[in-house]
């Protein structure tokens, strides 16, 4: 009886095993077929390896990019995944989706991180070629092809996908594993980014005085425009005979303004032109910051901003109390190409230029010579201005030693606070300090107001403003409140930020990966919460720097070229 039972039981078990095997094979075929729906992915799904895994505690892999919680804009070109792993010698990358669609699986034998192309014209004795840092030299990479990335994006909208990287050695035995969550936003970036693309080539001029760029190299500065859905940027302006600086577009994308020094190095010029596919800046487009007694002799504008409706340009000027430009700015240049300049105003007032009348006038309430008032930006409705303010001081007090590097304690110390003032059709008003962006022992500067007017994102650093190694981005309600450090901040220098016209994205510059500055994106939700930084790949050569990125409210092909014909310096 017992033996009969054993016999029938054994047969039953054999049958069950066979059935189970059949089900496994059937499931495998089904899953393989589903899997192959993703072009460009491997034919070997994860569970093939999983079946060969030995039970062991897997060592964590360091996944450096994308960071956990990253949100990508729809349509962005495929990113390069980065990780470090002491255990693996080959890897699988598995992307699983909350919408239950078939996972993506890919294999990587491990490609090392590589630097981009070098611009030979920007190689100099005063800089170093870009190189991989300690971590980057140990980094493995995988870049999905366009079809795979499109599949990942389409199944990770709103609900995050999980990216699992598994390291193998010794014949596909898993030794290491980690995962991160990433998602694709429904929010389009919706506008191209205009930016300046510069060499980092400080130069010791006559008498050893350091210049950020030798005059003979000024032509190497390019202005480019980038549609993040395209793999490359488009150069719209280069070979300028003269130095040009900060640019600004009106909120409606119809007006463009840019500081231009002029061939005669006449720094009192400003170009204001309508935005067109083929733009030409001619002498008639140049604004000469006029020099009547009301506004002072020094006519160098700083951080000029075109008003949302394009009628005005707001800028910082030294004001009537200052006779020489050098009495209103602290500037020191260094031969260290990584941070080659410190530059910030120590005296100055806000003035606005009326394009209709051709006059520039101080803005009452932001024209107090006891203070330096700078970085003025318009609210989206043009009704108020947010600006940075600090007590005015000598830029270089007598006996003060020269600073020899960025953030040298010998720099003139200044800590700005953010203020807000009504524009009131040029009549100004009483400035109000913005709580949360003032009186915090730090320098609060470079404010930008979100297109819906709800938020201000500004920079905080220990001293001064612009190109500060320790600069960090903070967000605050536009009426003031508790500031919140952006999650997107990287390890080194975060500044030059700009809101996308729809307010969902912020672009900014950082030296996180290289001394040669790159630009990044972060997504902002309705509550001002942001996400880890997303690199905009291939914005320039590996030995050039991206700065002053600005979203422009135009179609991606809205500007094809800008020609500058100001042979007479605009005079």
């Amino acid at each position, binding site marked *: 009886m017992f033996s009969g039972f054993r016999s029938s039981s054994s047969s039953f078990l054999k049958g069950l095993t066979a059935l189970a095997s059949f089900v496994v094979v059937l499931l495998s075929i089904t899953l393989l077929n589903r899997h192959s729906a993703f072009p460009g992915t491997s034919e070997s799904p994860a569970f093939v390896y999983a079946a060969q895994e030995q039970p062991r505690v897997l060592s964590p892999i360091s996944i450096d990019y994308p960071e956990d919680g990253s949100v990508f804009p729809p349509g962005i070109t495929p990113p390069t995944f980065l990780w470090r792993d002491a255990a693996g010698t080959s890897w699988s990358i598995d992307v699983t989706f909350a919408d239950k669609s078939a996972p993506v699986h890919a294999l990587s034998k491990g490609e090392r991180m590589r630097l981009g192309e070098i611009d030979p014209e920007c190689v100099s004795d005063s800089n170093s070629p870009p190189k991989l840092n300690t971590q980057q030299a140990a980094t493995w990479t995988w870049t999905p092809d366009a079809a795979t990335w499109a599949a990942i994006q389409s199944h990770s909208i709103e609900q995050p996908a999980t990216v699992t990287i598994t390291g193998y050695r010794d014949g596909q035995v898993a030794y290491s594993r980690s995962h991160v969550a990433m998602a694709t936003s429904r929010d389009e970036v919706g506008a191209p980014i205009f930016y300046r693309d510069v060499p980092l080539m400080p130069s010791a001029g006559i008498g050893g005085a350091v210049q950020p760029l030798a005059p003979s190299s000024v032509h190497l500065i390019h202005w480019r425009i980038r549609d993040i859905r395209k793999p490359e940027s488009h150069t719209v302006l280069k070979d300028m005979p003269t130095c040009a600086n900060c640019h600004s577009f009106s909120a409606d994308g119809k007006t463009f303004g840019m500081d231009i020094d002029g061939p005669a190095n006449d720094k009192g010029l400003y170009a204001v032109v309508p935005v067109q596919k083929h733009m030409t800046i001619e002498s008639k487009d140049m604004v000469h910051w006029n020099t009547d007694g009301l506004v002072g002799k020094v006519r160098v504008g700083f951080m000029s901003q075109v008003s949302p409706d394009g009628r005005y340009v707001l800028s910082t000027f030294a004001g009537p109390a200052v006779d020489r430009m050098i009495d209103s700015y602290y500037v020191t240049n260094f031969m260290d190409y990584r941070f080659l300049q410190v530059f910030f105003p120590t005296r100055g007032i806000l003035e606005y230029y009326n394009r209709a009348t051709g006059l520039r006038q101080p803005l009452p309430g932001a024209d107090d010579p006891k203070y330096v008032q700078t970085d003025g930006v318009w609210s989206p409705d043009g009704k108020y201005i947010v600006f940075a303010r600090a007590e005015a001081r000598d830029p270089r007090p007598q006996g003060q030693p020269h600073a020899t590097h960025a953030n*040298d304690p010998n720099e003139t110390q200044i800590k700005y606070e953010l203020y807000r003032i009504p524009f009131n059709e040029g009549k100004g008003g009483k400035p109000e300090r913005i709580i949360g962006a003032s009186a915090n022992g730090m320098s609060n500067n470079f404010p930008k107001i979100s297109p819906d007017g709800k938020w201000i994102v500004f920079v905080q650093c220990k001293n001064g403003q612009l190109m500060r190694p320790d600069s960090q981005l903070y967000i605050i309600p536009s009426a003031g409140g508790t500031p919140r450090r952006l999650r997107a901040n990287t390890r080194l220098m975060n500044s030059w930020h700009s809101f996308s016209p729809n307010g969902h994205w912020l672009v900014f510059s950082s030296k996180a990966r290289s001394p040669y500055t790159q630009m990044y994106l972060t997504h902002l939700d309705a509550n001002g919460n942001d996400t880890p930084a997303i690199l905009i790949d291939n914005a320039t050569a590996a030995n050039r720097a991206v700065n002053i990125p600005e979203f422009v409210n135009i179609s991606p092909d809205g500007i094809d070229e800008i020609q500058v014909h100001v042979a007479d310096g605009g005079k």
Partner: protein
Amino acid sequence: MAGNRTKTGIWVAPSDAITRAGLRPKIIHLAFLLLVLFWMPHISAQNCVPPESMKPRLQGHADAAALKDLGVWFAEQKNYACAANAFATSLQTDPNQKDVAHIAFMFGVSLYFSGDAKEGIAALQEAEKLGYKDIKLHLILAEALDAAHDTAAAETQWRAALEIDPEYSDALDNLSSDLIAEGNFKGTIEVLEIPRLVSLRTAQQSLNLGLAYAKLNKLDDAIRVLRDGLNTTPDSLPLANELADVLTQMNRKEEAATVLEVARARQAAEPAATTH
């Protein structure tokens, strides 16, 4: 290019651009001049033959600039004793010359490279007091002080170097090692646990930081740092060993065994791999 390389790899070219900022020739320390004068007879015994091209400038009463140039020339020939002699004579000839701090620095460096570490340190310290500002001064001085077992003074110099370049890895390696050696684990963490530095950490820094956390019984932090360090420098046996130790302390013996197994496998595959 003539010059010399210190243990920390810093290249010292005698003709480096002079930092004039903050120089105050009038306040040259008497002690420094005495040091120079004291040192002169010792080095003047050397056979220091100037090049033919410079002899016209050195005949009769050579001026301070010519003597400085002679020092630079000797340094370029790696004849540091003669270089020191020339720089000392230059300083003695004109203690108020405008580049005095830089010449004092070159004098100190020449002494140090000629093998006279004690006098070299003293001269470099004087160059610092004279206002010479260059990361190389701090790096050489720190290295010399460490070699002389004056750890506290070396730490000050490493910190001064890091003020100029917060990412300078040799300074971070050495400062954190000094701090670990003296049991200052909290100080080690303060120096190394800075977001800016995470992606630049060397194996030595990861090890020091992991050790500091482990010594303070912050074992989770120690594992985090050591794991990340090992992922960056997989061939580092000290990192693998320390990580295995900490995992064992936490009774995670299987993980510790895997770490050691992988480390051994890597060493077997790459026997010539360095430990750092």
